[in-house]
């Protein structure tokens, strides 16, 4: 699946492995969770109130559009949370689950 974001400045930090909907993907140290997901996917989550998806909006922790769900039950605001190794992100799951 093509990502929405594209990297313009090369990241030299350590590789960070995490999963999106079970698929193993790679990020770099210094990537926010939002960046890490959107470099691989066109969206961050399903919308709870209709048949659509969301990919964040303000990127400054104000609009709260980018909350994502992890398989361990954590909900994280992706634009203000650094990606960590082993995070298991659910993008296409039940948004109310």
């Amino acid at each position: 699946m093509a990502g929405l974001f594209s990297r313009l400045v090369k990241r030299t930090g350590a590789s960070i492995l995490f999963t999106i909907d079970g698929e193993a993907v790679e990020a770099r140290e210094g990537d926010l969770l939002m960046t890490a997901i959107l470099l691989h996917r066109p969206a961050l989550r399903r919308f709870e109130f209709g048949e659509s998806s969301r990919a964040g909006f303000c990127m400054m922790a104000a609009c709260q559009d980018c909350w994502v769900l992890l398989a361990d039950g954590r909900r994280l605001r992706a634009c203000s949370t650094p990606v960590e190794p082993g995070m298991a992100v659910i993008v296409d799951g039940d948004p109310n689950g």
Partner: protein
Amino acid sequence: MADPLVVIVGAGPAGVRAAETLALAGLQPILIDEAERPGGQIYRQPPAGAVRPGIYGLEIRKAAGIHGVLAGLGAVDYRPRTLVWNVFQDRLDLLTIEGHGEQRFDRLILATGAMDRALPFPGWTLPGVFTLGGAQIALKSQGVSIGRRVALVGAGPLLPLVAHQYVGAGAQVVAVLDVTPFAPKLLQLLGLAAEPGTLAKGLWYTARNRMQGLAAAYGVRAIRAEGKRQVEALIYKDAMGVEHRIACDAIGASCGLRSETQLADLAGCAFVFDQVGRQWVPQRTGQGRSSVPAVYLAGDGAGIGGADAAELQGRRTALAVLEDLGRPVDLAEAARLDRRLARQARFRKALENAYPFPDHLLDDVADEEMVCRCEGITAGALREAARDKDAAEINRLKAFTRIGMGRCQGRVCGHAAAELLARASGVGIEGVGRLRGQPPVKPIPVLGGVP
């Protein structure tokens, strides 16, 4: 007697300069910030350990100045990654990585900053639509572009700046569309010349964009994003009314800025309607005093002035705090700051007039469009409540429709909802009032620390 406890909320240009001024005067202020590193949004840094993308354009020295201040000041108790989610009397409610906490204060400086003023248009909730500020943060904090083919649309100085920064970083920008006309920009040149350096930069960005084949279109109307599951195109009408369709996968769109005012509201500050910025802001004197004796306001959180004005206000407000605490104050410095702030105010008025509020975007919002991104509340629902339930005031509209009650607490939908209500009820924008702030000002977990 112990030193008075001065707490500053927000480590952008205003908060950092306020902390610096207080520390140099011998106090030990506490500087609380939600982000991991200082700079605010305008000088947002990449996460610790990451290489700086290095794309501040002409502002790199100012950014480096703000980023470096705290390192040289041992006296500032700097607390990053700390959310202030409530103000109650002389106490702040906090959330940190460790969990919930409190902070008492004798004096409070709120330097809470601003965010993009978003206005709804068809398709604005599709994945791939971001604010212009968001598009800029993606670049300067993360070194990424919001898409492969990016269209930029809106009003305000961020539009040519983001275009310039994106092109400079190697992104493909396919359109720069200004929803305000060109003529007011010429008419305001004299006022804009109050800050010749800033005007020169704006002209430079615009000229560079043009040389790179990115001439902005002005007076653009009827914008809409189309796409099945994500953005595939931006459609708009030019000033002559001719429709254009631009293939793109991402859009940066917003119309100026709005102040982050919730904490000032919770602190009990009186509000006034700012005609220049077309929004309700906490009332402040030129020296940064609010209507509440222990509470001070600096930077864009109490009216939009931009980063340069925010630095000046941070310093000026700290001097007011020192004066009120009976400490010695450099009166010549205070007078110098007052003069520079007066010039900034002239510049800001001209700048707002150069980008007049794009009423046509609100007039065009159809009933089925979502105004609330959080919960999907439509323009039609708002109009119906205004018409059938006589909700002529924004908090009544909120009670009937839940507008402003979602996760963003009205940050994104509030202005558009007020504008739509003003149109539906025939009351002026000032007359519909403002959404009251409620704690927590941002979502907080019942258990655990800052996410």
